[in-house]
């Protein structure tokens, strides 16, 4: 099962984590990742941010990433939830849950989904800081993290 959600509403990571098992007795491992708005980025004090996205393409990109994860690892389910719009300091932004029979597959799939999401899904952060608002620059470290999942020297664009 693949569950993709893009929403402005806040979510409760605890509730989603508890629901990720879903009573499926074939699942032996659930790995969940939650990303939060932190107070500090690129050496400026951040009090809130705006997350822009490309409606339609966003959902399509996340679906594609989930399908690729399912091809690489035996997974019972994958959930990806990403918020858009205005977010305040300390709020959760993104949640990924991968469920599998064994922990290694669930761990790898969750890391893969996050690495690909950060470099292939059309989201852009605009941070509101004490010095004004600015668009966050892409990071080379995110590109490097995604590159480790290359297979046979090939990488999809």
């Amino acid at each position, binding site marked *: 099962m693949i569950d993709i959600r893009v929403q402005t509403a806040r979510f409760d990571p605890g509730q989603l984590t508890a629901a990720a098992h879903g009573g499926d007795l074939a699942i032996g491992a659930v790995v969940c990742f939650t990303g939060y708005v932190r107070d500090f980025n690129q050496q400026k004090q951040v009090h809130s941010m705006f997350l822009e996205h490309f409606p339609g393409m966003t959902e399509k990109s996340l679906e594609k990433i989930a399908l690729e994860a399912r091809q690489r690892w035996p997974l019972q389910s994958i959930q990806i939830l990403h918020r858009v719009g205005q977010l305040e300091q300390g709020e959760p932004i993104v949640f990924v849950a991968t469920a599998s029979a064994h922990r290694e597959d669930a761990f790898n799939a969750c890391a893969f989904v996050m690495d690909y999401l950060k470099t292939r899904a059309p989201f852009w952060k605009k941070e509101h800081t004490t010095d004004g608002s600015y*668009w966050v620059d892409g990071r080379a470290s995110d590109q490097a993290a995604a590159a480790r999942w290359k297979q046979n020297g090939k990488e999809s664009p």
Partner: protein
Amino acid sequence: MINILFFARYRDVLQQDQLQLNWQEQWQTLGDIRDHLVRQGSPWDVLEDPGIMCARNQDMCRLDTAVHKNDEIAFFPTVTGG
């Protein structure tokens, strides 16, 4: 026609989120259209950003991806979600 979308910083700099252009037969790739726009001068030089990313019909692609009449393409800065 070709429909071109801009997001985030590019949209702010260009002060528009989309543009329609009459199709030109010499266009083969998204890079050709990017170059056409850059040749219009400032503020279109924002598209010379080395971190530029692009999409064709809502699929992530590269500047050397082939483009066709009536496609919807998009140019945007390096993504920063998650």
